[in-house]
């Protein structure tokens, strides 16, 4: 527990009841956030806690177990935020002997938190304030005398309270969405640095050895996912999305980019990138890229990921990967979410095209689609809140409010969060998942890849979990509510134990069954797979209740950006695939599956009681 207002640090043993009821990681975090906040608090004020949670398996050899969950109220949406990042921070924190860090209050002057096993202290950070993440990482390692430290920090964007400022792990890995970086910035918390050299024990070493090594082997044996992941990274999906007409192009005007193959994983890995892996990973989907020639020679960064290749590439009309790498580098060192950053750039470009931004307001920039120098300049302007960047830094919907009603269509954003790079008009599972996601329209709470049925096993799983073959027809709503519900639960459980969603979705080799086994072997606590699923549902429900407690209705919450109801020419020729009616029907089926009131979309008091949320139900109704 770190109280930045008082400058006090307190170590507490983790309450066994919290573990029993909420599993770990994201589960414990949502419960703490619920208890520590009141509706209506200012996300950038001292009343907003920010909780950094390791997964239960972090720091062990359980496959791909290095994920860190960061939970707080979002300054972008004023709603629930869980954002997540890989790298090695969670593992190192666990090896230092800690499961969670709960930061409350705000410091008057810049500080950083230094965790060296049992020694935990707040240190002066005024000399680091204003540095980019690369500079700050170097400075911290030098001043603390250890080049192998794991750092978690904000860049100038977080310091400037940009609504989509990210929290960066080891310079380049981002907990990107929802503006958690701005929350750290508002607390003047520049960084958390950790070194962990204690022994991390498991309850049953012999059993854990068997189950963990077996899980690693099972994932490696998924030749389809492993090879695509290792060879091409997350960008493995670019080519297929473009060919299928669902790769966002020019601000989601359509989904096909001519000559877009240069944004593909195949091209990027051949020319620029080599693999990287998070803690205990089997896949190594991470990339590290270097530009060795041309005008952007010298640019280097981790990535680019699928999202970034779309957001800073196809969506802004750019197909030169070197530009995407340079844009990625800028976002990383300035501490900006690439998804939102690219969305604001493409919105500005479309607004300019429509005459809603004048050349003067653009400060002399040519805001045409495809202008690389403009995109790179805008990224810096947003991070530093300079000129037009100051407005853009407020997020797409704030920009729309300033520019007038016509601009709302150009904000591919809902609830205050910019949509991630999936054209949901081509995928009903994603459309529903994006609408329901408590933090806003993105894939990182569900990742319903099974809808694409890319291997016989995945196809069978999709049909089994929904009871219909329609599940693997992406443009059909059939089976999608059940699919989304299942994915919400496995994802929540993954975030509790700290495993990467690529093992529990995409590859589907980590299941409720083997996670339950590993959990017991690691902790000695027996939780069956059905119980795990139920806790997943409980987490989803409380996350929704957090938003309902803020005073919003299901009608206001379960929404998509308006453009998603305008047909895309490239998905089906002229055929409308997503309508408000179609979405509503899927939502109502989902509410029914969840046992919620179908009319209001609210969990009923009985349902909440059933899930063990009786106390919270009282607070919600009262």
């Amino acid at each position, binding site marked *: 527990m770190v109280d930045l207002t008082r400058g006090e640090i307190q170590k507490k043993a983790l309450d066994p009841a919290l573990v029993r009821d909420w599993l770990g990681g994201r589960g414990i975090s949502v419960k703490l956030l619920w208890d520590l906040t009141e509706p209506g608090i200012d996300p950038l004020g001292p009343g907003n806690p920010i909780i950094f949670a390791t997964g239960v398996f972090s*720091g*062990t*050899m359980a496959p791909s177990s290095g994920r860190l969950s960061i939970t707080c109220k979002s300054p972008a949406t004023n709603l629930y935020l869980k954002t997540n990042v890989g790298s*090695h921070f969670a*593992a190192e924190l666990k*090896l230092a002997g800690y499961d969670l860090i709960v930061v409350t209050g705000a410091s008057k002057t810049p500080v950083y938190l230094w965790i060296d096993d049992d020694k935990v202290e707040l240190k002066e950070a005024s000399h680091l304030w204003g540095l980019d993440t*690369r500079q700050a*990482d*170097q400075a911290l390692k030098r001043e603390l005398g250890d*080049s*192998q430290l794991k750092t978690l920090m904000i860049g100038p964007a977080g310091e400037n309270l940009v609504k989509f400022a990210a929290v960066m792990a*080891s*310079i*380049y890995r981002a907990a990107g969405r929802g503006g958690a970086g701005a929350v750290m910035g508002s607390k003047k918390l520049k960084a958390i640095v950790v070194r*962990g*050299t*204690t*022994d*991390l*024990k*498991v309850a049953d*070493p012999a059993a854990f*050895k068997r189950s963990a*090594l077996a899980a*690693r082997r099972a994932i*490696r044996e998924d030749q389809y996912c*492993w090879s695509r992941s*290792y060879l091409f990274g997350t960008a493995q999906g670019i080519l297929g999305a473009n060919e299928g007409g669902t790769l966002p192009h020019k601000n989601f005007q359509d989904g096909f980019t001519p000559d877009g193959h240069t944004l593909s994983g195949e091209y990027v890995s051949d020319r620029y990138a*080599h*693999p*990287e*892996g*998070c*803690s*205990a*990973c*089997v*896949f*190594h989907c*991470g990339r*590290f890229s270097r530009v060795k020639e041309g005008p952007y020679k010298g640019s*280097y960064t*981790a990535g680019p990921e699928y999202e970034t290749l779309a957001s800073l590439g196809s969506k802004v009309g750019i197909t030169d990967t070197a530009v995407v790498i340079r844009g990625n580098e800028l976002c990383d060192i300035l501490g900006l979410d690439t998804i939102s950053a690219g969305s604001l750039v493409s919105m500005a470009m479309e607004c300019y095209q429509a005459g809603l931004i004048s050349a003067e307001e653009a400060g002399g920039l040519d805001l045409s689609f495809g202008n690389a120098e403009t995109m790179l300049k805008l990224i810096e302007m947003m991070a530093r809140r300079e000129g037009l960047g100051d407005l853009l830094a407020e997020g797409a919907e704030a920009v729309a409010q300033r520019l007038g009603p016509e601009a709302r269509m150009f904000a591919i954003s809902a609830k205050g969060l910019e949509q991630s790079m999936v054209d949901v008009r081509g995928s009903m599972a994603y459309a529903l998942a994006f609408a329901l996601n408590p933090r806003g329209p993105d894939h990182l709470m569900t990742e319903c890849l099974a809808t694409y049925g890319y291997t016989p096993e995945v196809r069978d799983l999709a049909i089994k979990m929904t009871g219909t073959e329609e599940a693997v027809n992406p443009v059909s709503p059939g089976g999608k509510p059940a699919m989304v519900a299942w994915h919400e639960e496995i994802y929540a459980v993954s975030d509790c134990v700290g495993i990467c969603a690529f093992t529990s979705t995409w590859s589907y080799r980590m299941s409720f069954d083997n996670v339950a086994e590993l959990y017991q072997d690691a902790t000695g606590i027996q939780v069956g797979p059905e119980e795990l699923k139920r806790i997943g549902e409980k987490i989803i429900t409380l996350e929704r209740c957090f938003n309902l407690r803020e005073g919003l209705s299901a009608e206001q919450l379960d929404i998509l950006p308006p453009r998603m109801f305008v047909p895309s020419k490239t998905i089906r020729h002229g055929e409308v695939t997503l309508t408000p009616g179609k979405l509503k029907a899927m939502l109502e089926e989902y509410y029914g599956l969840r046992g919620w009131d179908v009319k209001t979309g609210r969990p009923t008091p009985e349902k909440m009681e059933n899930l063990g949320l009786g106390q919270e139900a009282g607070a919600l109704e009262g």
Partner: protein
Amino acid sequence: MPDRMILAVDPGRCTGCNSCMLVCSFVHDQVFNYERSRIRVWRDDDQGVFVPVTCEQCEDAPCVVICPTGALTKEASGLVARNPARCIGCNQCLSACPIGAISRFGGKWRKCDLCAGLEGVPYCAANCTAGALRFIPASTVAKEKAEKTALRRMKAAETGA
């Protein structure tokens, strides 16, 4: 000299996932702790470079030469073996090793023992899915490199580069 099986390290393929360190620590000491691992991955996060460092089982091992009690010996298999019963803790091996592959932690000295792990392959190599650690015949290393070089030159000759 017989063609030995060696733990071949290719830093160019290392992704910095640290699976090797976690597995090594656990299979030897039943806990997770990078400090207990007999293989250490050094990372430059900024440059995206990761280098695993472990005992190379030297043919003419300085640690074997310097050890006053014969606790370190070169075995027929190629392993530089450590016998804890003979170790007096003089620390000379720590300095003698030019690589830094012998470490001291918690009052014990440790180095890679080429643990016969999964199907006779050391656990670290068995769990490295990036191909940075492989348990292969020593002659393979040079052969593979030479073949890669040759293919590059053949390609250049074809394209007239």
